């Protein structure tokens, strides 16, 4: 990455425009909230969406292709980071809709929600483009600090406060490991840029143990952020205690951000550390998938079910990362064959993250739409008969569940198909078999929700009111799940194109 000629300052600002818009937008929304004292806060959610859409426009302004290294190597902005930025912004727009609807229903406004969401998105965008340990750290912390408040800041709700506090305690603990890993890697390579680390690794410096230890500690930190077993203990409690619209955001955009940096980092460390890095990741992937799916079988609370399901999906995504750095993928780019495997694995990873975000946001959106001010709609038993009381909400949730289970023609099937075919192409057949068995197990608990909604007799106390706005937004997502499931080619090809261009 070094050796690039730094673009002129004007060009740098052009490249950084989306980031500046989101950062400035967050400040603006905060200011508007302080100055415009009205009861209703609709203008804040509209302003937030306007800022997000503006950042998308700024993103597309320079066209696609090519990578520019800005801020003296701190950020590498290219199609890879752009893809993730679109994903983050999309998730944030829908979260704004869901959150606005929830505030409306509960009659309790949370004006601080909108600027925090924007800052959170900023952290993720920085993370997806980071090419220096410092930007990785700042991105993760900007994202996490906003999330702690988003999850824990529902006033007067002690469950939310406990969720936020638990997330903060364990998040801070994990950050300390991440930072210690960064410090050791810095000591090993003498610089904080990824290019310095790559050079030091390639030069085969003597104290390789320092790099292995540093990389391992950083993996713990990342593992916490993406809810990888055994660093997943916070996930069910936090997703359960946080309001549904925040849980949905955490399960999708935050996970995508974690994987964006994990993929880049794994590729950075892999070529020289194959002996210690690769088997560990294979083991973690298998354990994460299996634990997530097995524990999800026993859940009666839909938010906890979705939390365990998100752990299981982190496992599938880890399989994608394992394939990306597998020996067959040869990401140092020596072999033509290897390039192809790496490309298909990378594309599968990107496609999976998009698919997973769509279906999971739809599911959490419906849970949020059915929730009341003081009680979230989390008991699966009370979904009985929803198909008769709220047919659209039930249909959307059913589509999301089928897609999460990986049943065609939903996008969840295509994403698993791409993923496991990349795994097989890399010659990791046993890993693919474990993955497929896990998806089969998961069908049970996803289908259970559908069975309850469609086949069980409605009882008293079932959920019977749904927010129209939130359900329509979730319905749009469900439509996308179907559309992308039938026609995944264009997005998948774009994802492949992204990995054709970059060498991490």
């Amino acid at each position: 990455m070094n050796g690039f000629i730094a673009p002129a300052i004007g060009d740098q600002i052009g490249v950084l425009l989306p980031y500046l818009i989101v950062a400035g937008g967050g400040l603006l929304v905060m200011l508007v909230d302080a100055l415009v004292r009205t009861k209703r806060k609709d203008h804040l959610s509209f302003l937030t969406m306007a800022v997000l859409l503006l950042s998308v426009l700024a993103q597309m302004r320079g066209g696609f292709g090519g990578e520019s290294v800005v801020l003296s190597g701190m950020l590498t902005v290219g199609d890879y980071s752009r893809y993730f930025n679109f994903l983050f912004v999309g998730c944030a727009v829908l979260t704004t809709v869901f959150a606005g609807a929830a505030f409306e229903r509960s009659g309790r406004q949370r004006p601080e929600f909108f600027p925090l969401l924007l800052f959170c998105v900023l952290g993720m965008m920085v993370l997806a483009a980071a090419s220096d340990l410092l930007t990785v750290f700042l991105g993760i912390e900007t994202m996490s600090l906003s999330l702690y408040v988003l999850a824990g800041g529902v006033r007067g709700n002690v469950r939310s406060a406990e969720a936020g506090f638990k997330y903060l305690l364990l998040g801070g603990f994990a950050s300390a490991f991440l930072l210690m890993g960064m410090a050791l890697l810095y000591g090993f390579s003498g610089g904080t840029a990824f290019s310095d680390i790559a050079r030091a690794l390639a030069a085969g410096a003597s104290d390789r143990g320092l790099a292995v230890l540093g990389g391992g500690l950083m993996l713990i930190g990342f593992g916490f952020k993406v809810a990888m077993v055994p660093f997943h203990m916070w996930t069910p409690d936090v997703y359960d205690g946080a309001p549904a619209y925040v849980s949905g955001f955490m399960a999708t955009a935050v996970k995508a951000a974690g994987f964006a940096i994990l993929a880049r980092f794994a590729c950075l460390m892999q070529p020289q550390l194959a002996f210690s890095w690769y088997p560990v990741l294979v083991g973690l992937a298998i354990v994460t998938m299996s634990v997530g799916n097995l524990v999800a079988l026993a859940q009666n609370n839909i938010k906890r079910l979705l939390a365990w399901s998100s752990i299981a999906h982190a496992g599938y995504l880890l399989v994608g990362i394992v394939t990306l750095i597998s020996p067959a993928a040869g990401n140092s780019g020596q072999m033509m064959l290897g390039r192809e495997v790496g490309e298909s694995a990378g594309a599968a990873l990107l496609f999976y993250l998009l698919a997973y975000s769509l279906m999971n946001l739809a599911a959490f959106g419906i849970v949020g739409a059915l929730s009341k001010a003081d009680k979230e709609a989390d008991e699966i038993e009370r979904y009985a008969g929803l198909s008769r009381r709220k047919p659209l909400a039930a249909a959307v949730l059913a589509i999301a569940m089928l897609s999460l289970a990986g049943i065609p023609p939903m996008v969840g099937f295509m994403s698993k198909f791409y993923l496991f075919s990349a795994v097989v192409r890399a010659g990791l057949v046993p890993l693919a078999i474990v993955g497929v068995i896990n998806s089969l197990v998961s069908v049970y608990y996803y289908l259970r929700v559908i069975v309850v909604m469609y086949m069980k007799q409605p009882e008293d106390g079932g959920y019977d009111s749904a927010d129209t706005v939130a359900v329509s937004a979730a319905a749009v997502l469900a439509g996308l799940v179907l559309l992308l499931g039938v026609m995944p080619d264009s997005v998948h090809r774009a994802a492949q194109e992204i990995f054709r261009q970059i060498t991490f």
Partner: protein
Amino acid sequence: MVVTLNHCLLLAAGIFVVGMTGFVVRRNALVMLMCIELMLSAVNIVFAAFSRQNGDASGHVFVLMNFAVAAAEAAIGLAILVEIYRRRRTVDVDELKSLME
């Protein structure tokens, strides 16, 4: 006695382990927050030590950033903790059970 890199690293490792042990053993949320701060301080020592060793300033920059982030984290943590204490009258994490099944 000359203070070498290894002395600094040993000190940092000691502080890090104290923080880690404290976080795992103690149940008082305030003490747990302090243990995290202790671990972050250990990280700062490592960065400063390597920065001096390598004659490179980016480690020091990292330390400064780390201060800011640690302060923000502590502020948010204490704010949420005050909210919990108002309702629960306790800061013992074992008592915070409304999220357990």
